[in-house]
């Protein structure tokens, strides 16, 4: 059944308070670090001080001799597992590499790479002992930058890594894990047909997801081998699966409970601490808790990939694009698996271009292994493609919004990466942007306006949900996706809508892995779509059952019962004349009509709707300091149907904020030894509240017909356009194009000084 008629909705589309809100506001919610168990030990991870080194020996004698130390583990305590590739979360994953990332095996590959871990009776003892673990290193040459890592003479991280996607297979190991290509039409032909061509090179920096909650877990391995895990992640089933794989434990022997999550943004779609804590707990025979420091989070987890983006456009003078080429060189960090695939696919996805050539390289270097971050890969390529389109618009003397309209992908357009679009709302975002009052606000001196668009796939996948009718006529929804953005509220709203009862009468809980059916992790903007679909179907099954029970009470056929506004009615005069029965009345009699009323649905949700967005950004430049102030920002997005509009707006505003941080200030600073020099929020500059204007989220609703309420994923595409939107606004303000992120004050001032050389003391 579908509920696409907005006018008929009573709950979906309203803005009730989220059920987890109060506890989070008053500090009572239990996050990863908040749980305790009797007899619990504290774990601490010892980390590499080198960017690249061979581990010659590890001596734990001194550490083990510290009173209070109960266990120490190294990679020798984790089973050696064979290379096995799986596509999980939002990127490829090799379990052998994941194991080596949790605990270095043979070599350390980045500053902060885990080499050993201690469990002790207090955090201070664990810390002291971790510092006493003696690791003898043979320091090796290291490489940080992506293009340096691609050079033939670069230090090689993995001597068994041979570039995939090149024929014949290379004879020599390198840091290029993979080369991928996408083609549509004949690029050379299109380039010949072009009347105007443009070629530019852009760079992005790796950035951390910067969730406020550091990674934390509390685990217990029982004497009989049954394990419990309490941790902060984007998927308790993911934690369970990875720990089972990495430690050789039967899945049935692990019960993983999701903590409240203090932000993940993709960065908590894999494990760092849980397998290590399990190994310590097994060895010590006690529960073990590990909480990372902020410095460990920066040195040892995430980030999102950075890279080099080379773009070519060929166009007719009237603005029609005839050819486009994209080369993306993306950092994977210490192990293969950057999001180069999505980066390649997203760059031109907004446009109808006949001849396209796309090449991507997945490149390892001596930095932490990248993790997913909101629309992984797309912000990188889109910074290049949407900046370059702006440069082309200037060259063609065509309004940048108009140029996008001319080339916009529509119903039936075949995208360069393969699919033919159906039910997409890209042009609607352009229309809404064009009509928005923002576009008419006059700009002052040193102010500029930039436009950029973006695309993200959104996914569906495996989800299970149950709906239980309680004896007082309320209902409980049980599902398995950690709530990162208000999904409990959305789930309860969809169930309430189907059941016909008030939102406040439905509570949704996120259950542990032994208390609900399998849910793939919270990622890919899938939860409201896929788990929402499961919840809706479960609620529908409950309604069928409620009608059956009413029919039983009335002694008529279930087909002769209608369900409306939370009550059973006789379907018509022929059905008989009965007073309507409310859900509460039916629930009260459930024991006498067949037992408790509930339903579970497990699905693999198909038909996720693509997400398109168009952003408008105004900036003002301080020409003397190079400081960029974002004056106003409007983000237009096709959201399908906003189940809870406030939380959709929150996703949009959050994504834009992170994108602005990526655009203006965020970067990793490495010293000459390859050590991270800014592993903290003081010098890793995410935006603060006062840096941000109010971000206006404009929701365009082009319903996705494959979802019962028309929902599309909304959490990722908001981070795709901002970097280009900011760069395009800066170019509009000062006439100089910034092609390298971050567009920080020193870089901007240097660019301005080229325009207008200042009087300097040095001269």
């Amino acid at each position, binding site marked *: 059944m579908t509920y696409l008629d907005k006018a008929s909705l009573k709950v979906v589309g309203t803005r009730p308070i989220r059920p987890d809100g109060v506890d989070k506001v008053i500090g009572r919610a239990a996050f990863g670090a908040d749980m305790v168990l009797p007899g619990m030990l504290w774990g601490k991870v010892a980390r590499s001080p080198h960017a690249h080194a061979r581990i010659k020996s590890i001596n734990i004698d001194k550490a083990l001799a510290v009173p209070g130390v109960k266990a120490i583990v190294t990679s020798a305590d984790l089973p050696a597992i064979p290379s096995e590739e799986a596509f999980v979360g939002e990127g490829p994953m090799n379990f052998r590499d994941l194991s080596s990332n949790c605990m270095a095996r043979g070599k350390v590959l980045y500053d902060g790479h885990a080499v050993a871990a201690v469990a002790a009776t207090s955090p201070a003892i664990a810390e002291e002992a971790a510092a006493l673990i003696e690791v003898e290193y043979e320091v090796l040459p290291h490489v940080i930058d992506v293009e340096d890592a691609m050079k033939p003479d670069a230090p090689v991280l993995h001597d068994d890594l041979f570039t995939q996607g090149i024929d014949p297979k290379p004879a020599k190991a390198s840091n290029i894990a993979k080369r991928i290509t996408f083609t549509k039409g004949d690029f050379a032909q299109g380039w010949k047909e072009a009347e105007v061509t443009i070629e530019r090179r852009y760079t992005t920096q790796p950035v951390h997801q910067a969730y406020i909650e550091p990674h934390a877990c509390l685990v217990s391995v029982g004497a009989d081998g049954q394990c419990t895990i309490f941790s902060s992640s984007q998927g308790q089933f993911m934690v369970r699966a990875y720990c089972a794989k990495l430690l050789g434990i039967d899945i049935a022997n692990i019960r993983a409970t999701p903590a409240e999550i203090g932000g993940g943004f993709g960065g908590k779609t894999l494990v760092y601490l849980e397998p290590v804590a399990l190994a310590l707990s097994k060895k010590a025979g006690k529960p073990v808790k590990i909480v990372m420091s902020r410095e460990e989070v920066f040195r040892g987890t995430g980030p999102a990939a950075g890279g080099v983006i080379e773009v070519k456009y060929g166009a007719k003078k009237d603005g029609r694009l005839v050819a486009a080429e994209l080369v993306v060189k993306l950092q994977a960090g210490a192990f293969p698996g950057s999001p180069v695939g999505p980066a390649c696919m997203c760059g031109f996805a907004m446009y109808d271009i006949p001849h396209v050539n796309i090449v991507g390289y997945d490149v390892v270097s001596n930095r932490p292994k990248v993790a997913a971050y909101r629309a992984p890969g797309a912000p990188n390529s889109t910074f290049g493609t949407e900046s370059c389109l702006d440069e082309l618009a200037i060259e063609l003397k065509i309004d940048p919004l108009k140029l996008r309209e001319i080339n916009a992908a529509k119903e039936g357009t075949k995208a360069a990466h393969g699919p033919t679009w159906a039910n997409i709302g890209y042009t609607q975002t352009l229309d809404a942007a064009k009509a928005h009052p923002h576009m008419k606000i006059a700009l002052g001196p040193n102010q500029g306006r930039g436009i950029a668009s973006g695309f993200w796939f959104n996914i569906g996948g495996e989800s299970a949900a149950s709906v239980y009718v309680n004896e007082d006529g309320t209902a409980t929804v049980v599902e398995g996706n950690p709530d990162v953005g208000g999904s409990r509220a959305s789930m309860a709203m969809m169930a309430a809508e189907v059941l016909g009862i008030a939102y406040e009468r439905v509570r949704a809980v996120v259950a542990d892995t032994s208390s609900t059916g399998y849910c793939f992790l919270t990622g890919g903007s899938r939860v409201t779509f896929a788990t929402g679909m499961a919840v809706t179907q479960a609620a529908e099954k409950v309604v069928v059952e409620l009608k059956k029970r009413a029919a039983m009470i009335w002694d008529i056929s279930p087909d002769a019962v209608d369900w409306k506004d939370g009550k059973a009615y006789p379907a018509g005069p022929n059905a008989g004349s009965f007073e309507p029965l409310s859900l509460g009345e039916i629930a009260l009699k459930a024991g006498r009509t067949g037992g408790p009323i509930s339903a579970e649905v497990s699905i693999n949700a198909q038909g996720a709707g693509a997400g398109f967005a168009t952003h408008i950004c105004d900036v003002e430049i301080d020409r003397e300091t190079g*400081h960029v102030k974002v004056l106003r920002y409007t983000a237009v997005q096709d959201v399908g149907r906003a189940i809870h509009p406030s939380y959709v707006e929150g996703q949009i505003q959050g994504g834009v904020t992170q994108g602005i941080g990526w655009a203006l*200030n965020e970067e990793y600073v490495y010293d000459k030894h390859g050590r991270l020099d800014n592993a903290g929020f*003081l*010098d890793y*500059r995410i935006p*603060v509240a006062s840096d941000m204007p109010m971000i206006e989220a404009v929701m365009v609703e082009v319903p996705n017909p494959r979802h019962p309420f028309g929902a599309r994923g909304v959490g990722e595409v908001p981070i795709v356009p901002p970097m280009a939107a900011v760069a395009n606004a800066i170019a509009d303000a000062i006439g100089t194009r910034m092609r390298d992120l971050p567009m920080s*004050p020193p870089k901007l*001032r240097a660019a301005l000084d080229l325009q207008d050389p200042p009087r*300097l003391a040095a001269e």
Partner: protein
Amino acid sequence: MPRVSYTAPATVDEAVKALAGAAGLAKVLSGGTDLLVQLKSGRLAPELIVDMKRIPEMIGIREEGEFFVIGAATPGVMLSAHERLEHAFPGIVEGVDLIGSTQIQGRASIAGNLCNASPAADSVPPVIAARATAVIAGPNGRREVAVEAIVIGPGRTSLAKGEFVVEFKVPKPKPRQCDAYLRFIPRTEMDIAVVGCAVNVTLDAGGTCIDARVVLGAVAPTQLIVDEAAQALIGHKLDADTLAKLDLAAQRACKPITDKRGTIEYRIKIAGVLARRAAAIAFERAAARA
């Protein structure tokens, strides 16, 4: 395991004794907003921490004749809330207001900001620009020195073992004297100065500068008193030529480093920019007092 002792004396003499008697590293605690962070990160492992907040004379702001006397452990919010101090030295309060966040300012003191000896400390340049002195207590009694004599390098002070700052004495402004402090950070708050600049000027009735002090932060191992910049202002009104000379003088004085917070080249340029902008504010404020 590392162990640390803590004491909270009630008098300056007891504090001197505790500090002087410590066998290993002893640290003074006022707000603790630098010290506790250093302890937690493992950068410092003192044997003794002496908490000054229980010593009555070290907290609060008094007016004694021609001076404001500020207790060394006075939290920043008390400075900001002191209307007469704020009116006399808006630049000092501007510096204090830029330290961390509102919560941090509820703890952090200007003595701590000074004795942490960071070249980027925001409250220090305007205090030096006001020609303030610090009263230091130690095993040999009390002495009074210019504030600029205390920091001698990043993380290093001229204080001897057992010595600490008890209070600051800030001479009250003359007629048509006022100050301003500006810093540059890439964000809008919660950051460390890339460059800081305090300007304190005295004008005659016609608006010509008759006395000035220009102090830069974060562009050298210590705060810099830039005499050449003061000379560029004295005897002049704030016209374009004066501003250009001030800018160049400020740039010439800089001896910065390149680090994660800024490059040499950028810091030098910004020192000139901030000197001009701070001077403009200080002149306007001083003139308004005529």
